[in-house]
């Protein structure tokens, strides 16, 4: 592993200036958060030296705010810290269970949602979960701040929408309404510490009568990027999320998948399993939403 330098700016302005300086010189500047993917990559085949810009000392990347209308999760907060926040886990159980599926206790002590997203692996567990809850990515660069829906952020395998000189500051999430809940499920052949063969994130909002009035369904590890499946959401909206609706949403997920065959699973298997995961995750999200309704939250 080689690096020209390590810098740890202490403010957004400093970080932007640092990234701009290196972009101008044509140096490869690499943003570092938890480093659980990056440090391994630096030791692997991709060994071109670069400048490491550690964003963990920037206050905004560590900010966690559970607002009345909006939740903000700084891009550099380790998932273990997020999962220790019981209020956050209660609000977004699906997103947090996705984060809790990634790696060991040690990895979760460092790994971040922002890093999982920027790393842009097709199998990144939190990405479908983020799409399901409607995350908006807060990006900062020399030209100021911009926001982008998370489903547009990942462009391809290992590629994201950040331009030279930009970095991901955090994630904005609409605070789940009453009678709303999310869930994430993945399939792996082991019980833990594995990479998704297929994954599905779902969020649903019920009306006072228990009919589904809003839904978002996203699938992972079955296409070059995690994708939103509007047809699956349409199959759920207006129903009581009964078996027929779940089966229709599952079929929509299987149709939307364009998986590959590799050592972890075949095309046919992934296509089938992603539908099963949609059905089960939707049922969990529904039951969570009903439980919240019963509690009057």
């Amino acid at each position: 592993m080689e690096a020209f330098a390590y810098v740890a700016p202490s403010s957004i302005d400093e970080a932007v200036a640092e990234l701009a300086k290196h972009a101008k010189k044509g140096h490869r500047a690499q943003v570092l958060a938890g480093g659980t993917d990056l440090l391994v990559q630096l030791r692997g085949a991709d060994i071109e030296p670069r400048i490491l810009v550690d964003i963990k000392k920037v206050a905004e990347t560590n900010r966690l705010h559970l607002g009345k209308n909006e939740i903000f999760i700084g891009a550099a907060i380790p998932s273990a810290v997020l999962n220790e926040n019981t209020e956050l886990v209660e609000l977004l159980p699906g997103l947090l269970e996705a984060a809790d599926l990634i790696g060991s206790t040690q990895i979760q002590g460092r790994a971040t949602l922002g890093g999982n997203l920027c790393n842009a692996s097709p199998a990144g567990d939190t990405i479908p979960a983020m799409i399901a809850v409607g995350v908006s990515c807060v990006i900062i660069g020399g030209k100021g701040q911009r926001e982008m829906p998370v489903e547009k952020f990942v462009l391809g395998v290992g590629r994201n929408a950040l331009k030279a000189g930009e970095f991901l500051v955090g994630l904005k999430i609409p605070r789940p309404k009453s009678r709303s809940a999310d869930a994430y499920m993945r399939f792996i052949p082991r019980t833990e510490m594995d990479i998704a063969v297929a994954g599905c994130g779902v969020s649903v909002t019920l009306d006072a009568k228990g009919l589904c009035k809003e839904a978002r369904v996203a699938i992972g590890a079955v296409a070059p990027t995690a994708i939103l499946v509007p047809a699956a959401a349409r199959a759920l909206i207006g129903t009581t999320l009964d078996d027929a609706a779940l089966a229709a949403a599952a079929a929509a997920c299987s149709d939307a998948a364009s998986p590959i065959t590799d050592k972890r699973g075949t095309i046919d298997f992934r296509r089938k399993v992603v539908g099963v995961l949609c059905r089960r995750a939707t049922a969990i999200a529904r039951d969570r939403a009903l439980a919240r309704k019963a509690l009057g939250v």
Partner: protein
Amino acid sequence: MNKIQVITSINHEEVEFLCEPQETLLDVLRETLGRTGTKEGCATGDCGACSVLVDDRLVCSCLVLAAETGGREITTIEGIATEEGLHPIQQKFLDHAALQCGICTPGLIIATKSLLDRHPDPDETTIRYWLAGNLCRCTGYDKIVRAVQDVARDLAGPA
């Protein structure tokens, strides 16, 4: 190369060192500071042999840059025993023969400390998931789990 000066605290003792930007905390602990209790296994964050605590948070020291550790409190296996003797976790690992070759043991003891600090009375599932990032190719894990359960029982005191 431009060396970076770092002042940190290791096992409650102020330590100052110079490192290269790409050196990991594990590299510095073992090579620069000669604290070889922390082991290198995979160097990719998969095996847990290099586990340490940084500000009481369990991490793989192979995935932490040394340059990041300024002003932090680092706990390594060398900081576990006291002048009075072995830490109860270490003693129970011996009592239960929860080790053979010993390469994974420092990491497992650090991970167990982190587990019991947060979950003083863990059930077996919690123990197995918490320690899932610490690979052991000798014991088959059962003796390790028994040792951890025994420490937890002792810490809880007489029922």
